[in-house]
């Protein structure tokens, strides 16, 4: 079971991160945000799998924190992106 969960975590890691590398090269703002969102939930999934595979309950807390901050990063990105598209905002 541990091997299976580790393998699933590895597959998730490779899937989301390959998607990430691919998207960083041909980006529009919205594509980047979607990729960030996918990487965030992928990371949460990987951490949950690792927590159960390694029987380390604290790792679930890391997953919880990441779930919270994934949304935060997207918000930061939305406001950052709208700053960069409207030049009049700049000081």
């Amino acid at each position, binding site marked *: 079971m541990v091997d299976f969960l580790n393998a*699933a975590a590895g597959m998730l890691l490779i899937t*989301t991160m390959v998607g990430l590398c691919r998207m960083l090269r041909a980006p529009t703002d919205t594509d980047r945000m*979607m990729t960030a969102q996918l990487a965030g*939930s992928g990371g949460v999934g990987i951490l*949950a*799998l690792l927590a*159960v595979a390694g029987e380390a309950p604290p790792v*679930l807390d890391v997953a*919880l924190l990441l779930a919270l901050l*994934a949304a935060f990063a997207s918000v930061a990105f939305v406001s950052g992106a709208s700053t960069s598209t409207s030049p009049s905002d700049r000081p």
Partner: protein
Amino acid sequence: MSTAIALVTVVAVSAGSIFFLAGTIGLIRFPDAPCRLHALTKADNLGLGLIVLGLLPQVGTLAEALKLVCIWLLVLFSGAIVTQLIAATSRHK
């Protein structure tokens, strides 16, 4: 009984991973923003949901199980809102 539980875990986690894979492929291959969002939300909600469902029988305590469900709910809520935000941003252009 334990074989049945293990089977549930294997099936659900595999299905979740497949949703993540499909979501990533969709994100790379689909032509425009709404299509890509469609692919992304499947990975977010169903992929993570199935993985959490598969992990639930494996955790030791009720608190951990609740925490797993909380993680999924949190991603579900914030994912739904963030997806709306992304859609609004993409339509703005």
